[in-house]
């Protein structure tokens, strides 16, 4: 029975890994292919055209990547702060079902409907700034995901430990940075990364509310998918993945560095 369970577990693990690795392999193959048609398992012919054309405009591309990452990091930070306030309010008062419903609305409605509603709302607001509108809409869209992580984190006795900290004389930022954030860290990181991924991959909100002014990686990539230039789209897809991996790597190095510093202290 145990042997059967282990075999089943191993099989599921292999299938899962395959489901992640296989599309990645296909992306790489597509990036180097000129013709890749059904029913061929491998591309018909290979070429570096797609990579060359991207490298040709590498300066602009680099700037666009940098802007996308920076924009999404800012969105994530803002989302985390809003999610923290929401989760804290919910933990200190009885979890309001109305508030939860409102926060999780973006989960429930289609993103195109959300985008149209957001556009109408931002058109009515006094500030008419494309960057701000896109920024706020990304935050609103990522908020339910981040809030769900932090609400879970708040259930782990954060309030009680904060109370203990306050009795000892801690308050304000000292309490936040010495007690709350370290305790919430295991939940802050996935909340941050989730918000980042959502913001980076946002297309409809960015194109509708930005009016084409914001050149994010998604905006550059999607037209190639629609036009059938799969090799170019794949290269941009790999770039997208690479930028996300880089950020993950940076976060990992930061966390390890902090842990090492704590051990030394």
């Amino acid at each position, binding site marked *: 029975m145990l042997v059967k369970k282990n075999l089943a577990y191993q099989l599921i693990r292999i299938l899962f890994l395959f489901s992640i690795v296989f599309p990645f392999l296909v992306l790489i193959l597509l990036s180097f292919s000129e013709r890749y048609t059904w029913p061929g398992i491998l591309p018909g012919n290979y070429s570096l055209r797609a990579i060359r054309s991207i490298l040709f405009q590498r300066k602009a591309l680099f700037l666009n990547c940098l802007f996308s990452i920076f924009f999404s990091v800012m969105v994530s930070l803002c989302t985390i702060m809003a999610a923290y306030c929401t989760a804290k309010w919910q933990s200190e008062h009885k979890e309001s079902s109305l508030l939860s419903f409102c926060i999780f609305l973006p989960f429930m409605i289609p993103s195109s409907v959300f985008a149209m509603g957001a556009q109408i709302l931002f058109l009515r607001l006094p500030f008419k700034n494309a960057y701000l509108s896109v920024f706020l809409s990304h935050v609103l869209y990522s908020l339910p995901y981040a809030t769900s992580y932090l609400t879970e984190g708040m259930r782990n006795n954060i309030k009680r430990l904060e109370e*203990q*900290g306050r*009795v*000892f*004389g801690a*308050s304000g930022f000292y309490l936040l940075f010495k007690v709350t954030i*370290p305790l919430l860290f295991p939940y802050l990181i996935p909340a941050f990364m989730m918000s980042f991924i959502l913001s980076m991959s946002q297309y409809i909100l960015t194109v509708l509310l930005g009016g084409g002014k914001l050149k994010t990686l998604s905006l550059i990539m999607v037209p190639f998918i629609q036009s059938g230039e799969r090799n170019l789209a794949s290269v941009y897809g790999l770039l997208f993945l690479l930028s996300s991996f880089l950020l993950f790597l940076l976060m990992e190095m930061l966390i390890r560095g902090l842990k090492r510093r704590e051990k030394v202290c």
Partner: protein
Amino acid sequence: MLKIENLNVYLEGSSIVKNCSLEIQKGEIFSLLGVSGCGKSTLIKAVLGLIPSSSGRVFLNGRDLTELPPEKRDCTVVFQDLRLFPHLTVGENIAFPLHFQKKNKTEERKIVEELLSLVSLEGFSRRTIESLSGGQKQRVAIARALAQNAELLLLDEPFSSLDPNLRKEMGELLLHLREKRGLSVLLVTHDHEEALRLSDRIALMKEGEVLQCGRGEELFYAPKTVYAAKFMGEANFILGRVERGEFKMPFFPIPNDDHSCTAQSLVVADKPDGEYYLFLRERQLKFQKASGALQKSDALQKSDAEEMHFPEEAIDSREKVQAYSSASLFYPISSQCIGDSWRVFWENENGLVLHNLSDRPEDLEQVPYRMVLQAEKGVILFSKEEVLED
């Protein structure tokens, strides 16, 4: 030192603490005793400022704390769940309150080592919290609270999750710290034995109100209510009657030297006539082997019997005398070990069961015994209605 005046606390529309007034002196261990849910922890949190009070004041050394936030109240606390910071080491946990005392790193390290030594945890500074046992965590929590150097230490049932030996050890540590540092302590507990063992004074709470406040012996031997009497430990309640300033228990005639018997009577000047229960702790009741005279129903004089007032079940006074004479004889029926001594149960012919403490129950024989009262501190009576209500 700490003065609480008419404090009221409401939570979610319910009154949790009702008009509470207490005073704690410097250097004393003061217990808040009561069942779970009676408002003890809420009172502590209101003193700390973690829960707002709806009315009343809290003073510490003359300073009004009522409107101050928790971080400015100069009180320290060990909660029941200890609330050690899991992301910090033992040393960092203890050093946490020291940050606000503007000490440099060297001084902090020195104080941490001193406190660890005080709680017998030398060398534990770099250990993580999850690697500690329950007792060690308790000690770290106490050391951390002491690091704050506050005027008042509040303990909210800090020993309730420990085994009995460890609880005793922690209690001794607390007494040792009180002697060494002159600590003033407000201890919240539901364990009356712990309160009696550790405290200078106790306040018994019920449903948000303080029922009685005083030294342990007062609450134990002279409780003001039946609830307090029952809460503070095992007790005997013996039904009798007050008439003209004398309480008599007609079931227990006491033999005189001339083989006559008179009803046991106790002087109680302040009680109106009526039926009352005599309250006795186990230590106030002894049983001696009955003399030969009392075993004979003829020994009781009829005139004495007529002075007594008997329940109506008996037929005539002679029979009553015979009945009550034998009813005053008790036999040991069982015993129960309670730590260092034994609780012995005694029963008379009428089925009344009393209990007292004995060191050697094996020496008791199956012969008649009679009850001997040792209520040196005065008679405590509760009305029949009071006892039956509770």
